[in-house]
């Protein structure tokens, strides 16, 4: 029987949540196409990640485990993943559209001599062919495609599928990570911002823009994010304040920054330029706080407050901190 294969992302022994979202998509495709779900994980010391994956609903977990794979190498991982995809008779290969997914899966698709569709928000199986939808032109349009080559390879936008949970224990197969000549390899990972919640994985994004007037006022954005408790919210920034040097580019949300789809997005002092909206329009709920009642951001926000961020945001921070403390 063929397998819908998920390539899991494990960093420092920890399974990254978007991997479980990919399992959800894989289970859907497996149901539609009559296949099983197998997960491939690469790394060194994968037992904890495999235990978690084993309870995701996947039927099988293949762990390519060993010191040679302690650090990510696009070429070495791709070669090992492709070998396992062939052994698993993969009809589809899915991975999250993360920094690692974007680096790894195109190479996997090339080695499998097949196509790839990236940053996918919906998958399907219709009339014997895999299908996918993805935003193009920074979300100004949606492209629907049908795979004409096998296997179907896709990266999935994070925060777009629910994380899989509640399966029975899957069979786990261990494969020794092959050593050898690495063309590129990660030498060091430097935590930026002291273990902050990654922007694209955060359940809440609090973003600030030029309406904050001065770089030092960004602290109120950080305070509101912190009010949600540890590991929940991340801060984002508009292009204007990144270009002004107030915030690093890694926090920029928009067409030339990051595209985020959190359940809850706060746009504070952000007018809503086309290129910013491209980066956050798929958030489930958008809250805008802006002094200008005519700001375009209010046309796409679910809830808006017209007012001075300097008054509204601290009050909101206090109210949310009280709710979080009460939970």
């Amino acid at each position, binding site marked *: 029987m063929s397998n819908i294969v998920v390539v899991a992302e494990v960093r420092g022994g920890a399974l990254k949540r978007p991997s479980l979202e990919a399992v959800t998509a894989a289970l859907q495709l497996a149901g539609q196409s009559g296949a099983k779900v197998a997960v491939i994980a690469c790394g060194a010391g994968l037992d904890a990640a495999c235990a978690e994956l084993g309870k995701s609903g996947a039927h099988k977990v293949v762990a390519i485990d060993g010191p040679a794979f302690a650090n990510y190498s*696009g070429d070495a991982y*791709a070669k090992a993943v492709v070998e396992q995809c062939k052994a698993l008779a993969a009809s589809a290969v899915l991975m999250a*559209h993360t*920094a*690692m997914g*974007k*680096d790894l*899966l*195109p*190479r996997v*698709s*090339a*080695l499998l001599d097949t*196509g*790839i569709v*990236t*940053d996918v928000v919906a998958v399907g199986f219709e009339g014997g062919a895999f299908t996918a939808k*993805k935003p*193009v*032109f920074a*979300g100004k*349009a*949606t*492209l*629907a495609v049908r*795979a*004409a*080559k096998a296997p179907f390879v896709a*990266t999935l936008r994070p925060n777009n599928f629910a994380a899989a949970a509640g399966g029975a224990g899957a069979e786990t197969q261990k494969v020794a990570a092959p050593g050898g000549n690495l*063309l*590129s390899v990660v*030498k060091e*990972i*430097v935590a*930026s911002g002291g273990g902050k*919640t*990654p*922007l*694209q994985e955060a359940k809440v994004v609090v973003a600030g823009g030029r309406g904050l007037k001065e770089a030092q006022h960004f602290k109120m954005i950080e305070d509101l994010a912190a009010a949600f408790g540890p590991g929940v919210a991340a801060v984002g920034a508009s292009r204007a304040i990144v270009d002004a040097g107030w915030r690093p580019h*890694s926090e920029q949300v928009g*067409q*030339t*920054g990051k595209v985020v789809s959190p*359940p*809850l997005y706060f746009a504070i002092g952000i007018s809503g330029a*086309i*290129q910013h909206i491209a980066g956050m329009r798929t958030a489930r709920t*958008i809250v805008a706080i802006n002094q200008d009642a005519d700001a375009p951001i*209010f046309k*796409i926000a*679910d*809830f*808006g407050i*017209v*007012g*001075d961020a300097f008054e*509204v945001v601290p009050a*909101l921070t206090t*109210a949310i901190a009280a*709710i979080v403390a009460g939970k």
Partner: protein
Amino acid sequence: MDIVVCIKRVPATDTAIKIAADGKSIDPTGVTFELNAYDEFALEQALRIKEQLNAGSVTVVTIGPKECKKQLDDALARGADKAVLLSTTEWVYDGASTAAALAAWIKTVPCNLVLCGRQAVDSDNNQLPANLAGRLGFACVTEVSKLALDNGVFTAERDIEGAREVVTCKTPAVVSCHKGLNEPRYANLKGIMAAKKKPFVEQPVQLGSKAMEIVALTLPPARAAGKIVGTGVDAVPALIAALREIKVL
């Protein structure tokens, strides 16, 4: 070091997209095209590497319509040595066929480094560089915002979720470039004059069958108009209540 820079001509980022009558492509009427923003960083980095080594060549290549000559001429004016237009009238969106055509061409020229933008802002694929590397058997590092070359080995830095990765990368390599890598130069008059004498090659390319066939290109549903819950600090309780009602708080 012989460097190939892959560029793409794309609709300007402030373009409002309209769908063509075929329901599978954009209506180009009134659309302004420009060099893909991320490709500017790739071209600039190529020129800097050539300057650092004081040797080698920079060839800029694209797959696209004849109108791409404008973007290629601009690249020559900024300092590239040679421009190649692999011409087609098709929309270049399919990763596999594009990477295959580019890899086939790259194999015919001297090349130990391919530089690309991290993604083209039309198809938003972010897959060509690693795809190309796989087909060429080159090392690869993507979305790089800092790059140093020492003795034929690159040290690259790139942002990942919540951290920054330092990657070493051998040559030959494909490197995709992100914002922050450098400040691109613009063409000056001397460069524009010099460009007229530089080699420009145009040859047709067959992209072949697509691995991903377009079913439809549609505009996303507009977000339902929201609600202003109030004005000023007094509106905070109403906002909290609204967020609690839909269970996001």
